[in-house]
């Protein structure tokens, strides 16, 4: 009787101890053989060119890692969702991936304004979010423990670097500057103003809607400013309209277009009315080499092997395809460093330590305890409608986040 009472007491103590001790449940999305990654990108709609092949590039890199044996014996499983570059759809995709598909981490976002909408949720759920190719500065500043981005480039760096290039390489003292009237435009303008002040350059700014259909009024205002160069930091549609208008009105000063407007260069050359409009034209680029150039040929070869049907089509790979590689590389490196008993906390700690050259982008991926924007370096290319010639040098902005 006494023995059974003691046994009962012992059993009770064990039960109580098991209830009180912090027994850690298995990490979501991690099994003995797999790591589940939730990827999201615009796979349809008007912004399809900004994410479809970028997601394909990240997937093919994960496939390569899986073929090479995976990460600590685990294969990467990708669950892909369409975010339509729209805040509500992106949040729905993120919630589905986290709560229904139970992914270990999120890897996605190709449109800055949309991806920022997921910030609060991701931080609250303590799920790592590694952006695909969105700048997403609004989710990176102020930094959080969970969100990493700007693998293509931070928009702050884009704006500042373009002013730097126009002033230093083209000798501009006054710059006509066109940006979007959205978050993305506000970020690049902030750094542009900072660099313009440092370089003692005047900026004449016109902010336009990304869906603008007639640029006559903003262009006439900029022409009246009598600037030495025209800097365009917009998506492809406003950019094409502005370049065409500049040619029609005999504007012969240098025009510099940000990488966001170069989704399809051949199409751009057609849309602006041919090579005559591109006589004095530069594009800002974030890759380490010209598309298909020797430094990044392996990315294009890998794409061809992974997606033979897609690469047979003229419009593939899309211009931004290689941008999917650095973020995928970062995830793989952090997972490897986190060891076989990976947790979200360990993964996040390793992400913060990353400092490596992907070989794909103009600058290295550098994070730190307080830095969440991966890349701040950019190059410039002279483009005449057919040929691309790299301008020597790497450019960046002087702008720094001050908290």
């Amino acid at each position, binding site marked *: 009787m006494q023995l059974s009472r003691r046994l009962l007491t012992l059993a009770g103590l064990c039960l109580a101890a098991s209830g009180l001790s912090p027994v850690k449940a298995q990490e979501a999305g991690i099994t003995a053989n797999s790591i589940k990654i939730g990827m999201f990108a615009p796979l349809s709609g008007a912004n399809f060119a900004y994410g479809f092949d970028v997601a394909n590039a990240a997937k093919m890199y994960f496939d390569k890692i899986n073929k090479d044996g995976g990460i600590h014996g685990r294969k990467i499983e990708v669950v892909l969702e*369409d975010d339509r570059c729209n805040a*509500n759809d992106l949040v*729905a995709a993120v919630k589905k991936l986290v*709560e229904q598909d139970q992914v270990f981490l999120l890897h996605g976002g190709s449109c800055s304004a949309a991806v920022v*909408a997921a910030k609060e949720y991701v931080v609250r759920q303590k799920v790592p979010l590694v952006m695909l190719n969105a700048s997403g500065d*609004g989710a990176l500043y102020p930094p959080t423990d969970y969100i990493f981005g700007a693998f293509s480039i931070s928009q702050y760096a884009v704006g500042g670097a373009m002013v730097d290039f126009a002033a230093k390489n083209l000798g501009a003292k006054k710059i006509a500057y066109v940006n979007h009237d959205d978050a993305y435009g506000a970020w690049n303008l902030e750094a542009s103003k900072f660099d313009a002040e440092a370089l003692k350059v005047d900026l004449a700014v016109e902010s336009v809607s990304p869906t603008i259909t007639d640029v006559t009024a903003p262009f006439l205002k900029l022409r009246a400013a009598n600037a030495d160069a025209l800097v365009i930091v917009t998506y492809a549609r406003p950019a094409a309209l502005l370049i065409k208008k500049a040619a029609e009105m005999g504007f012969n000063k240098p025009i510099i277009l940000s990488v966001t407007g170069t989704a399809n260069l051949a199409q751009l050359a057609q849309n602006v009315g041919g090579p005559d409009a591109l006589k004095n034209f530069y594009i800002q680029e974030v890759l380490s080499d010209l598309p298909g150039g020797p430094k990044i040929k392996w990315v294009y070869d890998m794409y061809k092997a992974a997606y033979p049907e897609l690469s047979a089509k003229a419009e593939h790979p899309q211009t931004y395809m290689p941008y999917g590689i650095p973020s995928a590389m970062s995830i793989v490196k952090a997972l490897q460093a986190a060891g076989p008993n990976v947790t979200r906390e360990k993964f996040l700690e390793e992400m913060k330590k990353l400092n490596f050259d992907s070989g794909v982008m103009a600058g290295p991926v550098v994070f730190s305890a307080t830095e969440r924007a991966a890349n701040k370096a950019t190059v410039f290319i002279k483009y005449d409608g057919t040929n691309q010639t790299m301008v020597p040098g790497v450019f960046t902005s002087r702008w720094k986040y001050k908290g």
Partner: protein
Amino acid sequence: MRIFGLLLAAIVLIALPFFTTGYVIYLANILLTFTVLCLGLHIVIGEAGQFSLAHAAFYGIGIYVTGIAGTKYGLPFPVTMLIGGVAAAAVGFVIGVIALRMRDIYLALATFAFGEAMQWLFQNWDAVTGGPNGLRIAPAHLFGHEFVTDKDAYPVVVLFALLMIGLTILISRARLGRALRAVRESEVAAQAMGIPVQRAKLLAFGLSAFFAGIAGGMFTLFSTFIHPESLGFSTTMLALTMVVVGGLGSIGGAVGGAIVFGLISELLRQAPSFQEIAYGLILIIFMMYAPKGLFAFLADKFGRARHG
């Protein structure tokens, strides 16, 4: 049949949080919010026959006013929602005053212009709306309890959706509803019957905007971020499509249209390669075979089947 449908809906609404993930609850919250948005559009277009293309603007006013009242002034959510609804209604009355002088395509264009102007304001009034960076909204709270997750917000969203559906039914069955329908059919005849046409139109615009404002407030219960991009013409068109697909002029059509079309939109997100074509095809099929709306079509079919 109707009782069976209502019972089924009640069971689904009650059981949902116990058997589904937060993602499904998020979808339910969004669909119920759009239901209230569509009910507002139903009042002004379906009941009163006034063409309004500014619904996203009133929805935006509701979101921003409710969000700011909670975030900056720390007011509890029923109060913030009421303020948001009243603010939207006040602007709606102003638009109603303008609407008294216009009709048909001119009214549609004027309200469209107002909607675009409001989106510009949301986008550029940085100090208040956060401008293009968007606005972070603090979680709604009541008696010290914060509504942080979708599941927290769900019972309140359901309650408000039911309240607004009830209010719509009340309006529809009251003298006001009959007056609005009379105005829709013929303003001259309505006036001859002694209906104050101008007051009816003003009320339709004000009530419609109030509903949109409340829908905006419901959005802030489960979402902590708003970006002006979400408050453009496409949102108005989405709500209009939902009302038309469901059945213009019927409360069941507005509710059903919001839920069915919202679900179709989300399901098509899972099929990116052909979603645009599928979306267009569904719309064409609805317009060809169910021009009075999905629910009128179903009622017609079931009615015929029942009566041989």
